[in-house]
């Protein structure tokens, strides 16, 4: 049994086990889920270590026949593989799930069986998206991964959960259905559904057709990222989702959008990506500042973090569409960083919610006195999220800003403003939660984090410090693929300039 099939479908086996155990035995259900995710985590780390970062080729390849489309006899294959662009996200998804499952001890008490079932199915869906290398298989995993979160938000969510879950489902679905037409068009155009071959051949398309296909793909992924105009579903989905749902949504699901933009936007249609790069850089940069202002005005702390996600992912898109090596590697690393820091933030807010059952900022104040350990972790996470050097956020952000500056200095400068506003809203929130006199009676005798809650956060904290101090092994993992990608972009840039016949005055600085 090859590694990738094992790691992708092991959670499904766990889900089956959960299905078979009676709903009454909650302890056993939680144990199964935890054990499964732990095994997958070990596999994920093993995969990460065995991955050779310098080669751009697909590794751990699995390639079996699946079915053949009638008439034109286009083979659709069950093809899995990992390359530099996806290895970090696969490892993160595998490593984060045990933390998420462990956190459900605190806040999921009713219908535990269904919750564990949906969590495990979601993990398979997410891993599938990152490892699928057949366009149809990718589309299958892309849409199927919507359903588990739909149920998780819908059943265990807050008051407006039905509104939030329908809105999130239909919004993402609309994007992916437009993408479906593009997927069909490109498969029948090149008579194959294999992503690597499509990536090579697609750049040979006429620019106008390439731009149309790119727009369709980019729309679906921009909704998922979420990029600026399509972000309104995120705040509702986060606020109404249960803690573990928010952690997974922020930690991994949003990255499927950015990964999609990378794989199907830039890798598949470099010409069109070049054409649209300034637009996306603009949306990213403005998204950063817009998200920051949004967060400043929030009164619900969970909604505040959701808005901060809009701002953070603005960085990722900015870095990606700078189309420079630094920008690209920074954006891939920032996908992981955002998963860690925002995941931790949601976990912490979840812990406070379990104790105070409210998320309104003015209900807190002076909690640092009664819960020092909680205060330590919250300040730590806020600093990692505000990109303090020495922690994970900084490495990604520095590379992104550097890459963006090399491409379009204007957007980089606007993004640097985001650094300031980011610090502003995060520190304002920390101050209103932790510092100041204890005004509310309940805050006086909140008991501090217990062992379970600290242990479940440790892997993410250690990862944050490790990426902060020693980012080289993580960055080296993406080296091979990124060199291939940058080389591809140069070719497309050359072709574009040749077609323009205008000697470019602005010397390109590497």
């Amino acid at each position, binding site marked *: 049994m090859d590694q990738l099939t094992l790691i992708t479908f092991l959670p499904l086996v766990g889900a089956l086990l959960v299905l078979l155990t009676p709903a009454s035995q909650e302890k056993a259900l939680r144990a199964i889920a935890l054990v499964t995710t732990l095994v997958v985590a070990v596999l994920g780390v093993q995969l990460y270590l065995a991955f050779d970062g310098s080669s751009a080729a697909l590794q751990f390849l699995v390639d079996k026949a699946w079915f053949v489309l009638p008439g034109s006899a286009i083979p659709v294959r069950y093809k899995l593989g990992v390359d530099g662009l996806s290895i970090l996200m696969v490892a993160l998804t595998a490593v984060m799930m045990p933390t998420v499952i462990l956190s459900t001890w605190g806040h999921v008490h009713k219908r535990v069986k269904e919750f564990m079932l949906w969590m495990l199915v979601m993990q398979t869906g997410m891993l599938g998206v990152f490892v699928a290398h057949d366009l149809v298989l990718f589309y*299958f995993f892309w849409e199927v991964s919507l359903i588990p979160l739909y149920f998780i938000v819908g059943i265990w969510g807050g008051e407006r959960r039905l509104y939030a879950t329908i809105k999130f489902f239909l919004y993402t679905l609309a994007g992916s259905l437009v993408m479906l037409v593009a997927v*069909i068009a490109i498969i029948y155009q090149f008579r194959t559904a294999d992503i690597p071959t499509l990536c090579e051949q697609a750049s040979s398309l006429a620019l106008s057709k390439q731009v149309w296909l790119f727009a369709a793909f980019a729309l679906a992924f921009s909704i998922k990222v979420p990029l600026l105009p399509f972000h309104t579903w995120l705040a509702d989905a986060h606020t109404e989702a249960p803690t573990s749902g928010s952690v997974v949504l922020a930690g991994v699901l949003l990255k499927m959008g950015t990964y999609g933009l990378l794989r199907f936007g830039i890798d598949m249609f470099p010409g069109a990506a070049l054409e649209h790069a300034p637009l996306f850089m603009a949306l990213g940069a403005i998204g950063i500042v817009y998200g920051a202002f949004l967060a400043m005005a929030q009164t619900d702390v969970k909604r505040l973090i959701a808005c901060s996600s809009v701002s953070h992912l603005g960085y990722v898109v900015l870095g990606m569409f700078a189309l420079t090596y630094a920008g690209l590697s920074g954006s891939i690393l920032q996908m992981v960083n955002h998963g860690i820091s925002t995941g931790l933030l949601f976990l912490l807010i979840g812990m406070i919610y379990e104790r105070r059952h409210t998320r309104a900022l003015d209900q807190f104040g002076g909690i640092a006195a009664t819960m020092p350990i909680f205060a330590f972790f919250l300040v730590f996470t806020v600093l990692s999220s505000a990109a303090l050097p020495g922690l994970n956020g900084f490495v990604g952000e520095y590379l992104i800003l550097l890459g963006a500056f090399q491409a379009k200095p204007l957007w980089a400068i606007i993004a640097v403003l985001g650094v300031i506003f980011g610090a502003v809203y995060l520190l304002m929130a920390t101050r209103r939660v932790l510092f100041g006199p204890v005004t509310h009676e309940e805050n006086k005798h909140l008991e501090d984090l217990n062992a379970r809650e600290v242990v479940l956060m440790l892997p993410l904290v250690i990862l944050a410090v490790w990426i902060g101090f020693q980012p080289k092994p993580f960055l080296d993992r993406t080296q091979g693929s990124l060199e291939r990608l940058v080389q591809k972009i140069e070719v497309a840039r050359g072709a574009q300039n040749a077609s323009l016949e205008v000697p470019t005055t602005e010397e390109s600085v590497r």
Partner: protein
Amino acid sequence: MNPQDLLQLFDDRALAAVAPLLALAIGIIVLLLSGVIRAFESLRAPIVVATLAFTGWLVASNFATVPGSVIDGTYIADRASSAWGLLFVVATLLAWLFSHRYYAESERPFQVEHDVLMLTTPLGMMLMAGAANLIVFFIGLEVLSIPLYALASFRRSRARSVEAGLKYFLLGAFAAAFFLYGSSLIYAATGSLQLAEIKAIGLHGPLALGGVALVMASLFFKISVFPFHLWVPDVYQGSPTPVTALMATGTKAAAFAFLINTMFMLPKSAALAVAVVALVTMALGNLGALAQTDVKRMLAYSGIAHAGTVLLVVAGTLAGDPESSGALHAALFYMGAYVFTAAGAFGLLALLERDGERFTTLEALKGLAQRRPFVAAALTIFMLSLGGMPLTGGFLGKWMVFSSLVRAGLIWPAVVGALLSVIAFGYYLRVVIALYMQPVSERDAALPSGQTSAGSAAPAAIAAAVCAVLVLVMGTLPGLFLDRLP
């Protein structure tokens, strides 16, 4: 028609072609006889199942050997019509299984008549699918429709059932009359009723095109496409749920089978017009369903939307889809998936309805997942398949329909079609939300949970389970079905 022709009628290849029809006919007659004799009363179910199984086996064997045609070419049993035939047999079997123990005591004595009527419908469908002559199609149409009119109003005690039956009858007859007058005009213009000859002669001039228009109108009525779709909600809601299942799946498939054979009649320039009609149908179907509270009526509207989707395939072919049998493949697979999904969905509603409570409203479905997890799970799978979610048959059906459009170059209709199914998910999700995410409404809390009293619902439950599994298999391992397409 001299004696040689009569003998020629029964040479071996022709016999094989007509064998399934004969098998059905014999089955119907035996069933009728069993109804007459009180002693054979218990044999009713086995006869039905035996007939359908035998016919199914015959059709399947025809599918392999591709026999010739009967009565000098008016009925052809080629691979396509055999495939459709298989679909009709399955649809009827499912509908019949769901009608098991469905009717209240008052209608129980007429169960034999009900089964006879139900058994004649596949005969009509096969004739329609294999018709190469307008007469054979007309006969098939009537052999299908008249039993359905009776079946629709089977629960005479209920005003709604009678109203549905009568409405369906009057409008059905009205459309049939259109068909007749259309084919007479075509006959007047071309002098022949044989499709191949008509195709050879070609249809020009007002008379011929007027005829085509009228024929197409009646076909569009049968597949319930805009502006001929208005009867569907009332008839589907009024008639007993198993009959609705049969109507939604069987008749639509038969009409599409014939439509694909007569696509040549439509002028190429009509591609855009057909696409627009199809899209409007999808829009009306989906938007109409959005406003419904009764699940059965909602599924009726969703049926209209699905008819619109399959019609897109016709537009695709007219606009020049490079794959010759693209339309046939798409329609066959789509209707195949739709048969299992819609029959399963209606079957579940029938299952729930039999609990004596008007169970088909959304309000009644609230919190069902707690009390009847399997029914809820199956219903969710059907809803997702109707919406076209991957891992279900519905998705690949939609995939093939859109690919025929994309291949033909009709990009924007494909995009609009795709976006309309976002609206579709709007109401499919409403069912799933009721099942899983809303608490049981107090009015229904008192209802007995678990299996109901009215005898064992085993056959219906098994049928629904099989449908659900097949829908998933069609989604995950479509190879099994795709490789067998003609």
